């Protein structure tokens, strides 16, 4: 029983990590990666649709929540012929992207496809997302004020 709860939590963390990489990726990049995968048979459980979410902040950054403003979101759900159900959510209005995320989420849960989707889709996308993030971090770091360097330079 405990083992199964742990397994579920582990699976959920894995699914969330996969969803995060996919949500941060361009639809075109996901599409390209998926071309290298022999996709399993699947059907739409929920037709992709666009909608809104109300984005919440916190008073003072860490206090009670308040409504900041809305954001567009696309969502979809698919079911593999083997039964796994995947959900796709992403900011923006790209329903194709939501559908691809849902399909990947379903494959992540499938013992047959998990390794393939990790190798062919998630790993390359994760590398791209990380590269973009570290490029931005490096650019940002160059604008950090170093008061000490100024003092040493004068001496």
């Amino acid at each position, binding site marked *: 029983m405990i083992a199964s709860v742990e397994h579920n939590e582990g699976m959920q963390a894995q699914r969330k990590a996969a969803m995060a990489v996919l949500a941060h990726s361009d639809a075109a990049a996901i599409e390209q990666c998926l071309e290298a995968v022999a996709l399993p048979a699947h059907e739409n459980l929920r037709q992709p649709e666009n909608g809104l979410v109300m*984005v919440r902040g916190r008073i003072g950054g860490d206090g*009670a929540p308040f*409504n*900041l403003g*809305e*954001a567009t979101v696309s969502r979809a759900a698919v079911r593999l012929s083997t039964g796994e159900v995947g959900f796709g959510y992403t900011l923006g209005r790209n329903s194709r992207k939501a559908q691809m995320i849902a399909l990947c989420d379903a494959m992540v849960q499938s013992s047959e496809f998990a390794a393939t989707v990790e190798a062919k889709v998630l790993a390359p996308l994760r590398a791209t997302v990380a590269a973009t993030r570290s490029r931005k971090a490096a650019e940002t*770091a160059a*604008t*950090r004020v170093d008061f000490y360097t100024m003092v040493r330079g004068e001496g």
Partner: protein
Amino acid sequence: MYVAVKGGERAIENAHRLLAHERRGDRDVPELSLPQISEQLTLGVDRVMTEGSLYDRELAALAIKQARGDMIEAIFLVRAFRATLPRFGATEPVDTGAMQVRRRISSTFKDIPGGQILGPTFDYTHRLLDPQLADGFLPETPATGEASSAATPRVTDILGRDGLIEPSPASDADTPVGDLTREPLSFPADRDLRLQNLARADEGFLLALGYSSQRGYGRNHPFAGEIRFGEVEVGFFAEDAGFAVPLGSIELTECQMVNQFKGSATEAPCFTRGYGLAFGQSERKTMSMALVDRTLRARELGEEVKAPAQDEEFVMSHSDNVQATGFVEHLKLPHYVDFQSELGLLRKLRKEFAEAAEAPSEMKEAAE
């Protein structure tokens, strides 16, 4: 009173056709693309998203193009679009402490954990027009530095550890989060509703109010404790999936103002605070918002309410530029019947005035 006036259809149709022509401008000049607006008029897009109250760069860019660069018209278009989509729910509150910081400055401490990070800013530019930009300028690639893995905690959190600043109001699971897009405003309004109102408020209006409070119309002696801008992850509890799914990230600007302290017989004195948060890189907006958030706390903090910036009904009822423009601009609509009745009344009054001006001399003569 408005009356239906027939006969304008053709003129209206042709006026819109002319508008489309003027919007396009000289047809020998290449047309603006949405990515050009989104990538190169970034801060304009950020403002339209913030005041349009909808995070979607592409839609905001389209709105700016359609509105010929008229920001309030663009904001109006975005607000109207919102009404066409269903709302799936509310996100988990974003964690600005975990922001991937692109800019982060404090005017209260020189040495803050994570450092002072200037990022892309107009600050320290000389505000001289740059003729290079007039034609095909390709900027240098940005310098890079060694990114630190150190956390960048909020300055207010650091002050809070020593109890030097008031804590943020704690969340209460039993109190629903106020939403002015669902229920009409009523006063007094709680801080969550006030912040929602200020977040979508006109930047110019908040700037003027914040400025007035600095000049003495309302008590405000703030320090910019921290301003940060960067990417924040957004999560949404999806009922179908049964857990909070990541939606991606959005750019936000946050401003923490540190204000004069309060204390009482039972509470040690500590700094008070004002808070600002907006979509995109919206520094002036969030600074103004934080100033006005603080002035609007006058009632809560037992301060005398005597300046416009402290009057929540005044501020919140006039902060929305879509509402404001609607009421101001409705004066353009036909008021022919109204005006005819005013004109009739004025003619009558003038006639009576003229008759009265003649009558007294006769009466005076009669009395003598």
